C-alpha cells in the first residue's frame, strides 16, 4: 500500500509549531517512515503550483499552524481544504487565534501605523504603507492584503480536528499521527487532547487550600512564586481552572502559572470569562469597595485572560 501523504503549512506563526514537529526527535523517523510529506514550506521546496496539481484526496491530511492575517493565507488554506479530506488546526494560533490574536486589541490602522510610521527604528518620512499593487520600473508588484483582524483557522475554513498548545507537545502530536494512521480519529471537531482541566493533573493541586482566598493579585514580572504552592492560592493568575490539560504541566513545573495556551475544555464557551468567574469568586473581600480595590490590582485582565484566545472569544476584538 502506498504511504499516506500529509502536508504541513504555516500561516501567521512564530515557527514554534514547526519546531514542535522537529522536537519529535526519533519519533519523527517513525512518522517519515509511515507517511510521505507532500508539502512543508519550512523544510522542503514545494510551490503552490505543486499543490494545485494534487488530485483531490491524494494528500490525506493537512496540518495547518498559525493564525490568519493576510489574504494570501486565506487563499492557501482554502486550497488545502479543497484538496485534503482531513484538516487539522495545529497549535494555539490556528486553534484559538493565539498570541498574534492579541492584535485584535487594536485596529488594523493602528497596527500598520505602529509598524511603518511610529516604530523608532523606521525611517519613513513619506508615511508610505504597503500597497496591494505597486508599479516599479514598469513592473506591477502585488502584496497580499493585511486583513482587518486576526482569525483562527476555523473562522476561515472548516476544520476537522484541533491539536492545541503553543506549541503542541510531542506526545499529543505522536498520538494524533498514530490515530490518523490507524484510522482511529475521534468525532469530527474534537480537540485531540484530554477534556479535563489542568488543575486536575497539576502537581500543585494538593497544595490548594480548602478555601482559597486571594488577597492581592501578583505577577511573575514583579515577584517569584513559591514553587510548591498552587499559584492561584498565592494570587498569581494561573489559568489552570479554565484550561484543558495534556500539556504535561510544562509551565507549572517551570514555576510559571498556566497562561492558557490549550484553551478551555469543551464545557466552556469562553475561557476568559470562565476564568474571570473562577477568580472573581476567590477574592478575599466582603464589601464592594474592597472588591474594587482588589480588582484594581489585576493588571491587564484582557491580555491575561485571552492571551491565546482573543479572536475566538465571545467578543472577538476591541471595538471603538
Amino acid at each position, binding site marked *: 500500500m502506498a504511504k499516506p501523504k500529509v502536508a504541513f503549512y504555516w500561516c501567521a506563526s512564530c515557527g514554534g509549531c514547526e519546531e514542535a514537529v522537529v522536537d519529535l526527535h526519533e519519533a519523527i523517523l517513525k512518522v517519515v517512515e509511515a507517511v510521505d510529506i507532500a508539502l512543508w514550506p519550512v523544510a522542503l521546496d514545494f510551490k503552490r503550483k505543486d499543490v494545485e496539481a494534487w488530485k483531490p484526496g491524494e494528500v490525506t491530511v493537512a496540518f495547518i499552524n498559525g493564525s490568519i492575517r493576510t489574504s494570501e493565507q486565506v487563499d492557501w488554506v482554502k486550497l488545502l481544504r479543497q484538496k485534503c479530506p482531513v484538516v487539522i488546526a495545529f497549535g494555539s494560533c490556528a486553534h484559538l487565534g493565539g498570541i498574534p490574536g492579541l492584535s485584535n486589541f487594536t485596529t488594523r490602522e493602528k497596527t500598520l501605523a505602529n509598524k511603518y510610521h511610529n516604530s523608532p527604528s523606521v525611517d519613513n518620512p513619506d508615511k508610505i504603507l504597503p500597497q496591494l499593487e505597486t508599479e516599479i520600473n514598469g513592473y506591477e508588484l502585488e502584496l497580499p492584503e493585511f486583513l*482587518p483582524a486576526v482569525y483562527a483557522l476555523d473562522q476561515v475554513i472548516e476544520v476537522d480536528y484541533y491539536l492545541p498548545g503553543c506549541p503542541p507537545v510531542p506526545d499529543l502530536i505522536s498520538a494524533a499521527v498514530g490515530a490518523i494512521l490507524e484510522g482511529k480519529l475521534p468525532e469530527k471537531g474534537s480537540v485531540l487532547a484530554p477534556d479535563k482541566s489542568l488543575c486536575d493533573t497539576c502537581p500543585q493541586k494538593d497544595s490548594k487550600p480548602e478555601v482559597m482566598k486571594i488577597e492581592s493579585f501578583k505577577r511573575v514580572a514583579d515577584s517569584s512564586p513559591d514553587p510548591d504552592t498552587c499559584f492561584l492560592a498565592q494570587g498569581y493568575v494561573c489559568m489552570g481552572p479554565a484550561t484543558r490539560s495534556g500539556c504535561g504541566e510544562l509551565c507549572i513545573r517551570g514555576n510559571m502559572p498556566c497562561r492558557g495556551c490549550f484553551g478551555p475544555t469543551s464545557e466552556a464557551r469562553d475561557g476568559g470569562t470562565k476564568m*474571570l468567574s473562577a477568580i*472573581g469568586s476567590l477574592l478575599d473581600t466582603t464589601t*464592594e469597595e474592597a472588591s474594587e480595590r*482588589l480588582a484594581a490590582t489585576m493588571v491587564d*485582565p484582557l491580555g491575561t485572560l485571552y492571551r491565546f484566545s482573543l479572536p475566538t472569544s465571545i467578543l472577538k476584538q476591541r471595538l471603538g
Partner: protein
Amino acid sequence: MPEDSFEPRIVGFLCQWCSYTGADLAGTSRMQYPPNLRTIRVMCSGRVDPTFIVQALAEGADGVLIAGCHPGDCHYSEGNYRAMRRYPLLLKLLEQFGIETDRVRLEWVSASEGEKFARVVGEMTARLKELGPLNWKKRSAEYSGAA
C-alpha cells in the same frame, strides 16, 4: 437612529428569592417603569457567570442588569458575594474591549424593594439612551466579518 426613538434592550438577571420578587412587587403595585428590561430569572446572583453577561452584550443587548439579595441576605448565603467580587473585574475587562462600564449594573434589590427596582430600571434605561445602542453583533461583523 434618532436618539429619542432608541429603546435600549436590557437583559436583567434577577435572583428568584429577592430581586425577582421585588420586580414582581413593582408590577403588582402598578409602579411605572420603562418596558426595556427582558428578565431572566436565576436561582442566585452568584449563578450569573460573566460568560452570560458578555454573551448577552455580544448578541444584541445594550445593557445588562444583575440583581440579587442584599449582602448577608443571599438564600445560599455567599452567592451574592461572588457576584460582588466578579463585578469590578468584569467592568475592567469590558473597558478593555471598548464597552462603557455603565452598560452593566449590579444592584441589591430585596423582595420588598419594588420601588428601588423600578428606579434602577428607569435610571439604567435613561443612561443607556444617553450612551446609545451598543450594536456589538453588527459592528463586530462589519469590522472583522468573515475573512
